[in-house]
């Protein structure tokens, strides 16, 4: 059977949907996890702060591939039935939360100290301070680096191919085996990733510039 170039492109584009979906779920999961960790990271409890630091060190100091394997082989030991899809979403969410909490902490630190003092003097509770005073101000600064991290996350989903999740990279591998056209296929795969990531990169850059000039 002959594959035309259009066949290759069409199938790769269909597979790219799964890359986008995985990125979106990992971002949502990582965002929620990151927010939770952030509350601990900027809290007054020293042990909570150092626990989060340890978590960050563990996830930023080890290969994502190992994290994927540990989730993939570790969850079954706890009695969960794990598909490649579930392992990938869990591992990528944990990974994303470790990066997002560090990015967001930087933004919270950049909110002037007086904002904490002022809101405390109004009798606000810690979580209320965060919710009503600190986070809304930090949010504005947080958008550009968060979008920048999204690029890293989209690229990271390529590793889910190794535990057998059928996204863009793995589809490229399978099609290479079927067609023996690795040059064209991997070039196309790279181009599709580029088409997903480059708009995010330039959006993050323009946001940064706008924030810098404001």
């Amino acid at each position, binding site marked *: 059977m002959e594959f035309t170039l259009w066949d290759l492109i069409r199938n790769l584009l269909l597979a790219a949907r799964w890359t986008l979906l995985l990125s979106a779920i990992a971002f949502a999961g990582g965002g929620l996890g990151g927010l939770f960790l952030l509350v601990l990271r900027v809290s007054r409890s020293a042990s909570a702060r150092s626990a989060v630091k340890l978590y960050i060190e563990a996830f930023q*100091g080890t*290969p994502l591939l*190992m994290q994927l394997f540990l989730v993939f082989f570790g969850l079954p030991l706890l009695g969960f039935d794990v598909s490649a899809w579930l392992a990938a979403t869990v591992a990528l969410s944990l990974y994303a939360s470790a990066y997002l909490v560090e990015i967001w902490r930087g933004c919270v630190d950049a909110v002037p100290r007086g904002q904490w003092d002022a809101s405390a003097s109004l009798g606000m509770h810690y979580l209320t301070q965060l919710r009503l005073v600190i986070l809304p101000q930090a949010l504005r600064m947080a958008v550009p680096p968060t979008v920048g991290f999204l690029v890293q996350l989209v*690229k990271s989903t390529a590793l889910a191919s190794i535990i057998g999740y059928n996204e863009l990279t793995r589809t490229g591998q399978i099609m290479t085996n079927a067609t023996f056209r690795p040059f064209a296929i991997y070039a196309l795969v790279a181009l599709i990733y580029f088409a997903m990531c480059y708009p995010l990169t330039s959006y993050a850059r323009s946001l940064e510039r706008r924030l810098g000039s404001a």
Partner: protein
Amino acid sequence: MGYELDFGALLQYLSLFLEGTAVTLGLTAVAAVCGMMLAVGGAAAASEGSAGIRAFVAGYVELIRNTPFIVQMFFVFFGLPTLGLRLSAMEAAMLAMTINLTAYAIEIVRAGIEAVPVGQREAALAFGLKPRLVFALVVLPQALGNVYPALVSQVVITMLESAVVSQIAVVDLTHVADFIQSRNFRAFETYLAITAVYLALAVLMRRLLARCGRRLLAGRAA
């Protein structure tokens, strides 16, 4: 009945661990040295070169930074033979890691060059130094001093990302783990141990390079 973790089954593979560590560190060292040299050249071209060269470097940086490392590596290993360039797995891994690190390092070094005050260049030129020497002796050392910590982070990231070279059968630390767990069926313990080795390598590398940097670049940062 729960599962009992058993790390004892790993001890007999200690020599494999060491070999895998050597390969991972060796690959990282080659990529770091070649990548840094290319990055300095690329950053110099990006800040001093003609418009054409600048556009070429910018295109290269964007292309690499917006695609996954694993795809770049597959392209080098499986794709390039179509053009007649047949590389061994080890060579392909070195090339892919160097290509990848170079792109990130160019961005970092370029930022460092931009942060050097213009007065430094003007003063050096006023002394009658040739523009090339001004760059090499005055601008570049300060630029590297400015961004040294970021470069160290990038090298550590490259080391961690090199885990995927096991996918083209380079016998690095991850490949050793794949092999061991196929023998002892203790996947979780094996990967946990290897993950700990990676963590230790990352921490040690960061410390060591930071110490070297303080020696090397003492008083150079602008």
